């Protein structure tokens, strides 16, 4: 082997960090947090080691679906500035490697979750991976502007799986945690789509901003936020909620609804003038909105442990 060929290989051969980047570690942090909350607020105690393995499997399963998504979307990732540096478009990882890693980790995480906990949790994880990789990435993302709405279900499953790890079942509480993330996803992503405007259109992804225009998107953000409010408040009146959650949720929803209303009132001229400051603010508070809601559920569970939580 000549030195020149060695230098060519260095650009082709991936390091450990490149494979890790395929698993979308930032998305994984939200998955780990919501799954952990779903598991901890459940009324059934789980051995700490089993809980650790359960959350690890959910995180690895989410990462596996991320790798499958990057394999499928490598062509459009290379077009968009936000995703052009992902391992496949950057030339660090071969598409086949991402596919192999995604499939292998999917199998490992589902089987291990089944062995460690129960069949329902493993089945929900398998369905989540299928939903994100096949239903969202392959079927919806390039076909309909409702991609974000229906695809949001994939991100909404983790707390439900966490709950199933502990209880072995599905209940109104776990469905409400699912619904909270499901309804939150569209306004969150549409706020993002408003200020990264040129990217999705260049890649041929039919985001609502491209197909129906920005005025309609602003209306949709407000409409989905109005629908989100009762869904977010509802857990307060179930077994996992209480006054702390209710108070936190009322404040967060008031702020989020106010932000959505501000975004709805603005037109493109005003948004261009201040560099989409309000849209960016709405996107930022949407992140804390979800984290703090689930944090409040965790606080309620902690209070219940000391006999002072709930109603």
């Amino acid at each position, binding site marked *: 082997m000549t*030195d020149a060929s060695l230098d060519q290989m*260095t650009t082709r051969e*991936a*390091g*450990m960090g490149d494979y890790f980047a395929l698993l979308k570690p930032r998305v994984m942090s939200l998955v780990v947090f919501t799954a952990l909350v779903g598991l901890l607020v459940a009324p059934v105690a789980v*051995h700490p*080691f089993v809980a650790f*393995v359960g959350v690890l499997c959910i995180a690895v399963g989410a990462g596996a679906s991320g790798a499958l998504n990057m394999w499928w979307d490598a062509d459009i990732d290379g077009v968009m500035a936000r995703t052009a540096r992902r391992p496949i478009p950057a030339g660090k990882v071969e598409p086949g490697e991402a596919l192999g890693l995604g499939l292998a980790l999917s199998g490992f995480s589902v089987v291990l979750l089944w062995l*460690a906990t129960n069949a329902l949790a493993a089945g929900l994880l398998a369905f989540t991976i299928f939903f994100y990789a096949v239903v969202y990435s392959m079927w919806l993302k390039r076909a309909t502007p409702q991609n974000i709405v229906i695809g949001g279900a994939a991100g909404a499953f983790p707390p439900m799986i966490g709950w199933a790890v502990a209880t072995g079942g599905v209940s109104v509480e776990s469905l409400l945690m699912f619904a909270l993330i499901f309804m939150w996803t569209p306004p969150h992503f549409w706020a993002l789509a408003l200020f990264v405007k040129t990217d999705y259109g260049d890649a041929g992804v039919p985001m609502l901003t491209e197909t129906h225009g920005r005025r309609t998107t602003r209306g949709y953000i407000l409409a989905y936020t109005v629908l989100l409010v009762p869904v977010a408040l509802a857990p307060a009146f179930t077994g996992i909620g209480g006054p702390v959650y209710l108070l936190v949720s009322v404040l967060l929803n008031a702020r989020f609804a106010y932000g959505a209303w501000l975004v709805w009132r603005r037109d493109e001229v005003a948004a261009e003038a201040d560099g989409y400051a309000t849209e960016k603010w709405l996107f930022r508070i949407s992140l804390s909105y979800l984290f703090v809601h689930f944090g409040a559920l965790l606080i309620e569970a902690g209070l219940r442990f000391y006999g002072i939580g709930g109603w």
Partner: protein
Amino acid sequence: MTIRVEHELHGRRRGRNTGVGLLLVGLVGIVFGLTVVKVLNLGDIRQFETFDHVARPQIEPAAMEAAGQ
């Protein structure tokens, strides 16, 4: 360009091999830990010993209680 004994590529491969090694050790640890947890949560071990190849009615819980053990 001189040929170096240690190329950057070797370092990257070593890092990858070390990573895979650690992941495998982690997997062994998880399977071992799960086994320990599940065995410890099985409850009274006599339920499994009672009919281990040969029926031993004398170590059934009721018989042992009657014998004062």
